């Protein structure tokens, strides 16, 4: 048993750390720490910095412009990014479409598209979910009908994250209604400026604009935009979903959140007692800390398994379940810590009108926003089904 990283891995962590300390713009990391929405420009600015370093596409092989990292190095990188409040780059091009093209795309597609993902020329968004099909992708209904050299798409996609910043979208569409529902699905790339596409914002519970609906009406897409074979999109879809799950436990984020709670608890006085000395808050924090420390190790164990080629879907489901529980518990604790001061919408107050630290002022909306963690990327109920299927396999 050995929990230590190798010397090389520790050196890598130092390198990442000093890169983040010098290169990550302060104004951006402060927005991230305070749970504020980032603009398109913020994100692209950070992407450009990472791109210059060659670190933008953690999961890509070197030949396509990735850094060629091991699973452990990827882990270290994303952990340090979380601890330094670096923005998460949108995963759709870098962690989803990129790996899909590398695996299933033709040479032309790789040559044309991958570099534009790396340098931020293209901002991809996803067209997976539909109003009637959340976790149940096989039931999707958006149709693409072949018409000469084009597909004609009609239908609706939803939960399209940051679609408002995107210029391109990859879609799962139904190209056949024969056979099992999974069998008639294809994977298509679509320019968002194609006529017939309308994107509408979905305002979320916290008031933010993070996701969208996308409507397709007779949208004509060249058949060269098909990835892989027609009606074989299901295989691609599943491959993509496993890639969606990198850094699924979110240990870095949770560590950051716990730190932030401790800082706040040392500052807040509530009814004559510093919150860090309030036994109920302190005990709750201690118990979550124990769970987080366990999660950190669970994550490393699964990482070691992955390195040894043994990690499976069940393990990532376990990490998703406990990771979201711990992160949501921390959001709950942090929001609670503010007491009555959690209620005002902070955007309407100036910094010197606030009675709480700026980084805490958006605690409540961030808590509500984080309820999504147990819903998206396969809800926690779906994750339990996956694990149960494995446990009770005959």
């Amino acid at each position, binding site marked *: 048993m050995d929990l230590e990283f190798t010397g090389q891995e520790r050196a890598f962590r130092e390198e990442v750390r000093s890169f983040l300390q010098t290169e990550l713009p302060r104004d951006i990391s402060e927005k991230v720490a305070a749970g504020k929405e980032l603009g398109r420009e913020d994100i692209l600015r950070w992407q450009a910095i990472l791109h210059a370093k060659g670190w933008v596409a953690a999961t890509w092989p070197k030949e396509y412009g990735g850094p060629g990292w091991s699973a452990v190095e990827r882990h270290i990188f994303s952990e340090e990014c979380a601890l330094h409040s670096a923005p998460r780059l949108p995963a759709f091009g870098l962690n989803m479409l990129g790996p899909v093209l590398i695996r299933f795309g033709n040479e032309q597609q790789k040559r044309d598209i991958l570099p534009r993902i790396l340098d931020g020329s293209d901002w991809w968004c996803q067209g997976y979910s539909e109003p009637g099909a*959340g976790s149940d992708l096989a*039931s999707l209904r958006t149709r693409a009908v072949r018409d000469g050299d084009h597909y004609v798409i009609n239908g609706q996609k939803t939960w399209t994250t940051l679609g408002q910043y995107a210029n391109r979208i990859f879609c799962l569409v139904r190209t056949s209604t024969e056979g099992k529902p999974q069998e008639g699905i294809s994977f298509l790339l679509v320019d968002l400026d194609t006529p017939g596409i309308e994107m509408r914002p*979905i*305002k979320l*519970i916290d008031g933010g604009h993070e996701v969208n609906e996308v409507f397709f009406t007779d949208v004509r897409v060249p058949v060269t935009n098909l990835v892989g074979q027609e009606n074989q999109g299901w295989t691609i879809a599943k491959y993509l979903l496993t890639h969606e799950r990198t850094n699924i436990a979110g240990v870095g984020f949770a560590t950051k959140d716990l730190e932030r709670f401790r800082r706040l608890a040392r500052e807040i006085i509530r009814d004559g007692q510093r919150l860090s000395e309030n036994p109920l808050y302190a005990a709750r924090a201690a118990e979550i800390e124990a769970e987080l420390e366990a999660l950190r190790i669970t994550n490393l164990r699964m990482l070691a398994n992955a390195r040894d080629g043994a990690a499976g879907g069940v393990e990532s489901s376990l990490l998703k379940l406990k990771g979201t529980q711990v992160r949501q518990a921390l959001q709950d604790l942090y929001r609670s810590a503010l*007491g009555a001061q959690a209620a005002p919408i902070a955007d*309407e107050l100036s910094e010197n009108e606030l*009675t709480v630290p700026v980084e805490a002022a958006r605690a409540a909306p961030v808590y509500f926003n984080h309820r999504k963690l147990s*819903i998206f990327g396969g*809800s926690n109920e779906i994750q339990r089904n996956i694990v149960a299927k494995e446990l009770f396999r005959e």
Partner: protein
Amino acid sequence: MDFNLSEDHQLLSGSLRRFLAANYDIETRNRAAFTAPFHAPEVWSGLAELGVIGAFVSEEQGGFGGTADDVAVIFEELGQGLCAEPMLGTLLGLRLLAALGRSDLVGRVISGESRAALAAFEPQAACDLFCLDASARPEGDGWRLSGRKSAVYGAPGADLVLVAARITGADGSTLGLFLVNQPDLIAAPMIDGGGIADIVLDGLWAECLSPDCGGLIEDALDLGRIALCAEAVGAMSHLIEITIDYLRQRKQFGRSLASFQALQHRIVDMVVEREQCRSITIAAVAAYGTPAQARTVSMAKNLIGRMGSKIAEEAIQLHGGIGMTWEYPGSHYAKRLVMIDHQLGDRNDHALRMIRLQPIAEAA
């Protein structure tokens, strides 16, 4: 023993429900609740005309109600309808004006002409009046207040703001109550709708309503806590109902979500807790005005703080993405249920208050 609503209460809650259904759909609500003055004046007038405000004080005091039961019946309906009007602040302020014999002002508040609010707690005092720091000193005919008040519910637009402040004399200090007219506010909408404000007192001139009324203020706050509990019960009931409807309608993997046993069992647990929350609110109503008041109210606020969040989180989860959207009313109910725990002391504050206060039987 009778747990049915009286005929009067049935009438009151029925007319309140019909009024909100007719005049307060979710779009109207959200428009008013998040834009200054963070409420809908025409709805407020309507509520006043219905007698909702008058029901908070007794006939002797110029109203037509005044029991904890009256308050709970009304707030449960407000919760069902997700009403973000400044009813809590009004309840707190009005009760104190009435208790201190200011019938001139009571009448104006009941008619809807004036609005009252209570500035009791402070950035460092969440639930315990002994920890208040704001102070008052006499000057000429009046008083000067200093300190900072926070979480003044319904303050934006209120013309009568009551401020609790400490008066220090030779023998120690008392908690006095002061009236200020339209003070400067640091105002904002709340996450879950409705107005809230801080007030930097900063030598503000004030009229003294009472030099020593800590007990009355605590009573008003306990009634406010009961109101919040009843509101939560109403909100829970509605939220569970629409969650069940959603599960019935929504299909996944070719089956109605309502047919999944794991989801069914979770709904059942929510219903069990909702019944418990209704019961503890009834207990707090019954204990109001008795020696068991403070402890029972704290039980209620603790249980509802815990279960309100749990039911809200479960409801969002059971809805999936839809439950996360602003457009879906359920998300606002969920927000309200979570944020109620932040008002007038949270689950932990009230657990600690229960611990401080011995059970009556043992104290005796």
